[in-house]
C-alpha cells in the first residue's frame, strides 16, 4: 500500500471557535416550546373554544338564556318540540331543555373539577411521597394505593353515595368520585419520581444543604409533573361522565339539582315520545368530555418532544 500523503486543508486562523455560545433569539424551555407547538394545532383552538363556552355557561348561565330552568315550567308544554325562544323544546315537566342544559353545566363542571382536584391532591401526595422516600413509606403507601386501585371507583362511589344518601351534594359526590380515582395517578407519579430523583441535579441540590422535602418540592416534583397534568386533563372528562352515570343511576345528586346526568336520567322515560330531551343533554355531555380529553391529548403531545417532532 502506498505511504499516505500528508494532507492539510486550507485554513483561516479564526475558523476554530471553542464552545462559542450560540443562543436563539427567544429563550426556550419546556413550557414555552409546548405552547409554541400547541399554537400551531387547529384542534387545540376548537377544543379550547368548546371548553371556554362550557366554562362561561357554568359561571354566567344568564349570558346564554334568560328562561328560568326550574320555575318557568308549564305542563301544557310537556315534551313539546322546539318553538321560538325554546330552541330545544321542553322536558316532560314542561321546562325549557336549553335552559336546563345551560344551568346544568355548572353542576357537571363543578363535580368534574372538584373530583379531579381531590384525586389530584391525594394522588400527588401519595405518589410523590412513595416514590421519593421509598423504603417502608413506599411499601405502605403503595399497598394503600393498590387497595383503592382494586375497587372500581364507580362501584365505590355508588356504595358511598347510597350510604350518604342524606348528605347528597356536589361536595359529597366529588369526594365519592375523586376519593377513589387517585390510585392510578399516584402510580404514574411514583414511577416518574423514581426516574427523576436519581438525577445528578437532585444530588447537587442535596449537596447545597437543601432538606430532602424541600428538594422534593423544588426540584423533583416540577420535573415529574408533566404526566400528572396530562392525566388530570384526561380524568376531568372521566369525572364528568362519572357524575352523569351516578345521577343516571339515581345515586348521584338529588333530582332537584340540575345536572346533565339528572336530565338524561329523567328523560329516559320519554325516549320514544321526545328523544330530543335525552339527546340534547347527552350532546353537551359528550362535547364537554371530548373537548377536555382532546385538550389533554394535545397537551401530552406538546409536552413530549418526540411526538412534537412528528406533528
Amino acid at each position: 500500500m502506498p505511504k499516505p500523503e500528508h494532507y492539510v486543508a486550507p485554513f483561516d486562523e479564526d475558523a476554530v471557535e471553542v464552545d462559542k455560545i450560540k443562543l436563539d433569539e427567544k429563550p426556550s424551555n419546556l413550557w414555552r416550546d409546548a405552547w409554541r407547538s400547541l399554537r400551531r394545532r387547529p384542534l387545540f383552538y376548537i377544543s379550547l373554544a368548546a371548553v371556554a363556552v362550557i366554562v362561561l355557561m357554568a359561571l354566567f348561565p344568564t349570558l346564554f338564556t334568560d328562561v328560568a330552568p326550574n320555575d318557568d315550567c308549564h305542563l301544557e308544554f310537556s315534551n313539546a318540540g322546539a318553538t321560538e325562544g325554546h330552541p330545544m323544546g321542553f322536558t316532560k315537566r314542561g321546562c325549557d331543555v336549553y335552559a336546563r342544559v345551560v344551568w346544568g353545566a355548572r353542576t357537571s363542571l363543578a363535580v368534574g373539577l372538584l373530583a379531579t382536584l381531590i384525586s389530584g391532591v391525594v394522588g400527588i401526595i401519595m405518589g410523590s411521597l412513595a416514590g421519593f422516600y421509598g423504603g417502608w413509606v413506599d411499601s405502605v403507601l403503595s399497598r394503600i394505593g393498590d387497595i383503592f386501585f382494586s375497587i372500581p371507583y364507580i362501584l365505590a362511589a355508588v356504595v358511598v353515595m347510597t350510604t350518604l344518601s342524606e348528605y347528597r351534594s356536589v361536595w359529597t359526590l366529588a369526594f365519592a368520585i375523586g376519593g377513589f380515582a387517585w390510585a392510578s395517578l399516584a402510580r404514574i407519579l411514583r414511577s416518574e419520581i423514581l426516574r427523576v430523583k436519581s438525577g445528578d441535579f437532585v444530588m447537587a441540590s442535596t449537596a447545597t444543604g437543601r432538606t430532602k422535602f424541600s428538594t422534593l418540592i423544588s426540584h423533583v416534583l416540577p420535573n415529574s409533573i408533566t404526566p400528572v397534568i396530562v392525566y388530570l386533563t384526561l380524568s376531568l372528562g372521566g369525572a364528568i361522565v362519572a357524575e352523569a352515570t351516578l345521577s343516571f343511576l339515581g345515586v348521584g345528586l338529588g333530582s332537584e339539582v340540575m345536572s346533565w346526568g339528572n336530565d338524561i336520567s329523567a328523560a329516559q322515560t320519554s325516549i320514544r315520545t321526545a328523544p330530543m330531551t335525552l339527546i340534547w343533554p347527552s350532546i353537551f355531555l359528550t362535547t364537554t368530555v371530548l373537548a377536555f380529553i382532546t385538550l389533554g391529548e394535545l397537551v401530552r403531545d406538546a409536552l413530549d418532544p418526540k411526538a412534537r417532532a412528528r406533528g
Partner: protein
Amino acid sequence: MTQETSVTDTAEPLVSIKDLEIGFQTGNGFVQAVKGVSFDIFPGETVAIVGESGSGKSTTATGIIDLLPSNGRITGGSVMFAGKDLTKASKQEIVRVRGREIGYVPQDPMSNLNPVWNVGFQVREAVMANNMAKNKKEADKRAIEVLQEAGLADAERRMKQFPHQFSGGMRQRVLIGIGLAADPKLLIADEPTSALDVTVQRVILDHLESLTREKNTALLLITHDLGLAAERASKVIVMYQGKIVEAGPSLEILQNPQHPYTKRLIAAAPSLASQRLKSQKIVVTDAPQGDEIDLVAASAHRHDVVEHADHGGVPAIEVKDLTKVFSIRKGGFKSEPFTAVDQVSFQVPRGTTMALVGESGSGKSTVAKMVLGLETATEGEILIAGKDATALDKREMLAHRRRMQPVFQDPYGSLDPMRSIGSIIREPLDVHKVGDKQSRELRVNEVLDEVALPRMIASRYPNELSGGQRQRVAIARALALKPEVVILDEAVSALDVLVQAQILQLLADLQEELGLTYLFITHDLAVVRVVADDVAVMEKGKIVEKGNVEEIFANAQTEYTQKLLDAIPGANIPLGA
C-alpha cells in the same frame, strides 16, 4: 481466511471515498453533517478518524454501510468498494455487503447486546445472517469459534449466558466477535472502547489489532482520542465540522501538525500533554490566555502557583481510615456486606489539588460522596479544615456544606432542566439564606463573570447550552457560596478535548484566584498529570499508592499504577515538540 484477502501489496484501495456528503432532516431544517469527505482505505490498513462530538466522524463511518438513522441521507459523493458504489447500491446489495464484507463494532457495549437473548443466540444470529453456516449445529460451532477468537475463555459455557452476566470489556469482545464473524475485509469500529476502563481498553485494542493483522482485515477506527488514534493507526484523519482538516501518517500528524485545529487538539489532549510533561521541564510564568490553551504551559504555570501555597498548617481535607460497607441484597432476605471503601486515608493541603484515580468500581466516587456528606461513612473520620464532618447535627452540617461544594460528571444531568441558569446558580445562596435578593443577584453575576459566561445567560435555560457551558454553570453554582473546597467528581470526563482543556484552565485560574482546594475524582491518569499535585490510586476500595504526581509518574511503585500509566493511549509515542 480466504485467499483474496491476503493480497497486500496491491496499490488498489479497498474502499475509496470521494466527496461524501451526508445530511440530517431535523426539526430546524436540513443540516449538513458531512461536507465532502474523501479518503482511501487500503487492504489491511488501519485508519483512524479523530474529531470532537458533532465533527461528523461517526456519521461518515455509518454512512459507508448505510447505517444512518432514518432522518439521515447521503446527498453526494461516492463510496467505492470492490468496484461498486455503495451509495447507489440497492438495499439487498448493502445487506450483502454488511457483515460479510464490512463488519461494524458499535460504541456502547452496554446497550448494543439484546438483554433478553443469550450471547450465543446473538453471535449465532450474526453467523447465520452472513450465511457462514448451513444449519444450527454448524452455526453453534462457528459461534464458539468466533467467541474464542474474540478472546473469551470458556466460550462454550459463555454461549448460554446473558449479556448482564458479562463485564463491559467482555461485551465489547462479543461485539468485536460479531463484527468479525464473517471475516470481513473491513471492520468499522466506532469508539469501541470509550465506555471502558483504560486497562481494559488497552487489552481490547491489542486484541483487535492482532486479530485484524492475522486476518489482514482493514480497520477504520473512529475515536475522539488523538493519542489513541496515533498509537493504533498508520493513517490519521482529523475531522472538524464535517470536513477533513488534516490527514496523513499518524506520527507525522502528531509531531508536525500543520492545521491550527490539529495543533490545538494536540496542545489540549491530556494524554499527549502528560507525555510532554514527562519528557521535559517547562517553565512558564504567565498562564496562557484566550482560546488557545496549551495544557503543558497551563499545568506548568499552575504547579508554579501551587508551590507557593500553604503546605503547612491544617490540611483542607483530611480523611482517616474511611470505610464504607454496603449491604448487597442477595435475593430473598439474605444480604451480603460489600466493602466499597476500605480504610482510606489521605490529606489535601490547602490550595492544592489531590486526584483520586481508579477504574470503575474502585470506590473513588463513594469517597467523594462521603466527603460531601451524601453518604454516611461506616467508619473513619473526615476532617474539613480540621473539623470532623462525620459527627455533625443538622445545623452544623448545613454550615459545613458551605465550605465544600461539588461539581458532578454529567453536565446534562446535574442542572435542573426546569430552572433558569440564574436560579440554578442562586440556589445555594437561597438555601443558606445568604444576603437579600439583590445581593444574591449580584453574586450570581459575579460568579458568571468568574466562569467566563455572559451575564445575560442567567435568564436562559440549561437546554440552550452546550456540555462545556453547562459545566461552567455547575462550577459557578459550586462557587456561589465561596467554598474552600471543591469536589470535582469526573467533572471533565464527558467533555470534548478542547472544551475539557478550557475547563481545566478555568479550574486552574479559579484555584489561583480564590485559593481553592480541589479533590479531583477521575479515571483518567492523563488528566491527573496536568491538573493535580498529589495523587492517590485506588483499587477495589483501597488506596494502593499515593504521593506526589511527578514522583508517581516517574517512578510508580506498584504494578497496578504502572499498568494504568502504560494504558494511557499515546503514552509511548515519541513527540518532537
